[in-house]
């Protein structure tokens, strides 16, 4: 890809990658760092990356950076910072969205990533498998488990009351 294609990728995919990371990580500053790292890697390898696969390349890099980051940092304050961010960002549908994001936080990193990639980005099982280095069946199974877990969280008695 050319420099122009790279800048086009920034224009098209930077928000998506950022959303994917910030929903996963629930920390805006760390999410920015990961996004910058992902795009920096794309810039370095722009000659070997096709323009059509720039988005999946960015999500792949971002996903692995996310995994590395969460494994190394193991932040305790993730929940608090995420709550502060979500409170300011989603004032209108506070109840529904807050509960859903709380439910999302209960998922594992892989499950959460699969949900985010599926719902936000609309990737197929195969594409998610390529990004996360999982098989299609694994993606499907993990994703179904994540859905059921979310549903169970949403229909739990605490959330109903």
């Amino acid at each position, binding site marked *: 890809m050319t420099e122009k294609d790279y800048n086009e990728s920034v224009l098209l995919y930077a928000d998506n990658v*950022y959303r994917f990371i910030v929903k996963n990580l629930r920390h805006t500053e760390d999410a920015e760092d990961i996004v910058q790292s992902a795009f920096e890697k794309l810039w370095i390898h722009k000659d070997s990356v096709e323009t059509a696969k720039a988005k999946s390349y960015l999500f792949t890099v971002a996903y692995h950076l996310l995994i590395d980051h969460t494994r190394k940092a193991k932040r305790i304050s993730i929940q608090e910072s995420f709550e502060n961010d979500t409170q300011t960002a989603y004032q209108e549908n506070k109840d529904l969205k807050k509960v859903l994001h709380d439910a*999302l936080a209960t998922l594992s990193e892989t499950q959460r990533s699969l949900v985010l990639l599926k719902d936000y980005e609309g990737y197929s099982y195969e594409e998610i498998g390529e990004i996360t280095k999982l098989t299609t069946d694994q993606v499907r199974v993990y994703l179904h488990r994540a859905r059921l877990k979310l549903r169970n969280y*949403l229909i739990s008695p605490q959330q109903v009351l």
Partner: protein
Amino acid sequence: MQNISLHNYRDFLLRYIDEELDLRQTEALLAFVALHPEVQQELESLQSTKLDIEIMSCPNKAVLYKNMFPVIVAPETIVYPNKQKLFKKEKEKAPVVLLKWWAVGAAAVFILMVVRFGMLDQKTSSTTSKNSISKNKVLKAFPISNIKNNTTINNSTINNSVANTGSWTATKIVADKNNNTSNDMEYAAAQNIEHQSIPTVSSITTRETAQTTPSYHGDIIDVKPTIIAEITMPSFAGNDETIETYETIDTEAASSNRTVMVGAFEIDKDKFRGLFRKVNAIIKNKENNKNEK
């Protein structure tokens, strides 16, 4: 296509939420859900787990762009510290001078002449100094005496009067007007006196004087004589002879004007005047040719 039943409907529901069913599977599932209201509730609960698309903007997206605005970066200048050592200077070739055969010949002749005349000059100077020394010896042997030469110089006397310095004694030569002198200068002086028609010239006295301080060139004492002619005229009244000096010939000054010192050699300018003129003419011709070009 796998049939949808109460045992496998959940998988179809999840795939329906993930939008992984094709059109026929979707129609079959919706038909199955319509037949089973409990499945409808479960479908709604699973649909609530689906995240609504949120529009989020990356806060520092501008940082991610590369070279969107041309930035002129000053080229990095790295200066090699020992550059002076790398410079090379080509050795200047000696200018080629084309010598013509006649120029070489002229130069050789000139050098030979200089050497020859220089050697002659040295010989003459050595002989004169030897003569001077011999004269001195003679004069020392005969401190006061009159030397008469009957054949060439009549009534000529050489009076040796010791000079004040004592290094050289002056010699007085007295000659009659009709007599020839062995010395050319004396003869010329005598002839000059004759042409002046001096009626009664009793005697012409030439006197050789020497430098009061003779110069020394190694072992040879160089004494350069000066010949002074004195004409003695008798008085018509029969009184005592009075000596009148008419002319003084200073050979020292004349020889110094004629000679040029080239290194250790003394060269007579008159002998090389023609050669100098030729050399000057050649140089002028070359300059004219250059100016014309």
